[in-house]
């Protein structure tokens, strides 16, 4: 222990250490559970029945199954499509465009749009799922406004375009977060710098590309990583809307993990899926840590 400056701290070291114990226990439990997921992934542990008690080691069998059977790779692909279109294209780009448009405008327009998109974000996942199931159903909002008035047959969107519907629902729900981050980032760009660029004769596009963008680059990176990781492991919205169906069209990795572990009861294989997900998220987080550490 190095030199401690504060006597009220040094005379109570034991008390303070004791105060940290519950937190250490909970964080320790979290690390322990992560380790457990690794251990389970080498067994054939089951949810119910004989395999729940008399499980055995199966070596790398679960991991072989990840790559030799179609389930995992299909889900990985579905997840990548879902993340790319709903998080990166949808939430980030739309959030950025909104932030760029609304920055420095009259406050009423800004407030109205903000409250509108914020409502989606604040809604609990299951309520959003219910809303979008109802909106896209045969008698729902979209059919009764855009399809039926033109004399067309009502379309069962959630059945025919399942992945597109959950993607749009997630854009609707999540854009506010990216928007909030981007508008804060844009507000932090000093006006003097933009003014100076203007005086030097930079055009509007040059100012955006060469002046503003480099300044807010760290914010863009933070935003992309956070929403990528969240969307990658996002469960409730898709599960409540489609359950992964029809067929396996919307079965992202989180749903695949749930279905294998708790519907089929293969806790061992489910653990292998979660290890694969943890590795992917871990790799993404490490990239994020490196970017945070880099001096701006």
């Amino acid at each position, binding site marked *: 222990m190095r030199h401690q400056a504060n006597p009220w701290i040094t005379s109570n070291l034991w008390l303070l250490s004791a105060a940290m114990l*519950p937190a250490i226990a909970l964080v320790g439990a979290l690390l322990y559970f992560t380790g457990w997921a690794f251990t389970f992934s080498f067994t054939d542990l089951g949810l119910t029945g004989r395999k729940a008690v008399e499980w055995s080691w199966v070596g790398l069998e679960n991991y072989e199954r990840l790559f030799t059977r179609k389930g995992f790779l299909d889900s990985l692909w579905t997840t990548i499509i879902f993340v790319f279109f709903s998080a990166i294209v949808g939430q980030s780009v739309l959030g950025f465009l909104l932030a760029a448009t609304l920055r420095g405008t009259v406050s009423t327009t800004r407030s109205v749009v903000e409250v509108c998109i914020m409502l989606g974000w604040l809604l609990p996942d299951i309520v959003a799922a219910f809303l979008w199931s109802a909106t896209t159903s045969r008698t729902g909002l979209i059919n009764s406004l855009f399809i039926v008035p033109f004399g067309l047959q009502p379309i069962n969107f959630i059945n025919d375009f399942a992945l597109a519907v959950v993607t749009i629902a997630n854009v609707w729900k999540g854009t506010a977060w990216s928007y909030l981050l981007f508008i804060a980032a844009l507000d932090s760009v000093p006006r003097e710098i933009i003014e100076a660029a203007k005086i030097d004769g930079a055009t509007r596009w040059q100012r955006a590309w060469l002046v503003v963008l480099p300044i807010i680059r760290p914010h863009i990176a933070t935003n992309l990583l956070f929403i990528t990781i969240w969307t990658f492991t996002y469960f409730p919205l898709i599960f409540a809307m489609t359950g992964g169906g029809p067929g396996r069209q919307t079965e992202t990795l989180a749903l695949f993990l749930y279905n294998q572990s708790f519907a089929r009861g293969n806790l061992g294989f489910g653990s292998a899926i979660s290890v694969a997900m943890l590795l992917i998220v871990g790799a993404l987080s490490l990239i994020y840590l490196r970017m945070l550490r880099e001096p701006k």
Partner: protein
Amino acid sequence: MERTTLSRPMALALAFMAVIWVSPFGWLLSNAFDTAATGRLIWPQRFGIDNFTGAIGGDAGRMFLNSLLIAAGTATISVVVGAAAAYPLSRLRMPGKNALLWTLVLLRMLPSVGVLVPLYFAAQRSGLLNQFGVMLALSCLNLPFTLLLLKNFFDTVPIELEEAAYVDGASLWQIVTGIVLPMSRAGLAVVWFFSFTGAWNEFLLPLIFSRVEAGFPMSVGLYGAFGRMGAIDYGFLAAFSIIYAAPAIGVYFLLRRNMNTGFAGVGVKG
């Protein structure tokens, strides 16, 4: 000053977008106040609040209480355990403190689906497949974030105040309860309400932890009600959804000004 005024097409596009964004809410409201709701987009046929009275009594009322118990319990455990550890973490000079903080940042990214199976397994073995188990599991997953956020808040309390109190003869307990906690009141409130809304909205853990219908929180109950095949009672579900969504939305507008601290909490000032 660069004062942008929106061009007419741009303003129209924004208005159009806002309408699209809120239209599902219009549908929700019109159905919730229509006692003969059919899920179609029409002006309420029979205006009334029967749906709401239905959605706070009986099973629905119990689900509300379950949600409240889980959310308030998780928030309180997170804040108490988090604050007790965050103060020493903020003031003590320990070896390996930076490594510890970075571990917490990494753990904050840990997705709950990644530890779902071990969580379930541990809860099953220790008889915690109930609301209390959900609370503990959520607090566990929540703690890295809570700890970092609270440590950052405690870091901003000036140490000179504590020194002055010590010189005046205050004990550690008096310093903490008399100076540190009151000065980071806003931070504690933000953390509590963040945890509260997070647990209130949580679906996956209660789904696998709730063995009996009496233990269902609103998220699981709502899922069960509209996932079921057959006639859907749109009026009831719409009212139920509004009641379920209200606390989360209310908390946000209550804390709107303090909300940006949530972004500050993602980094570490080591």
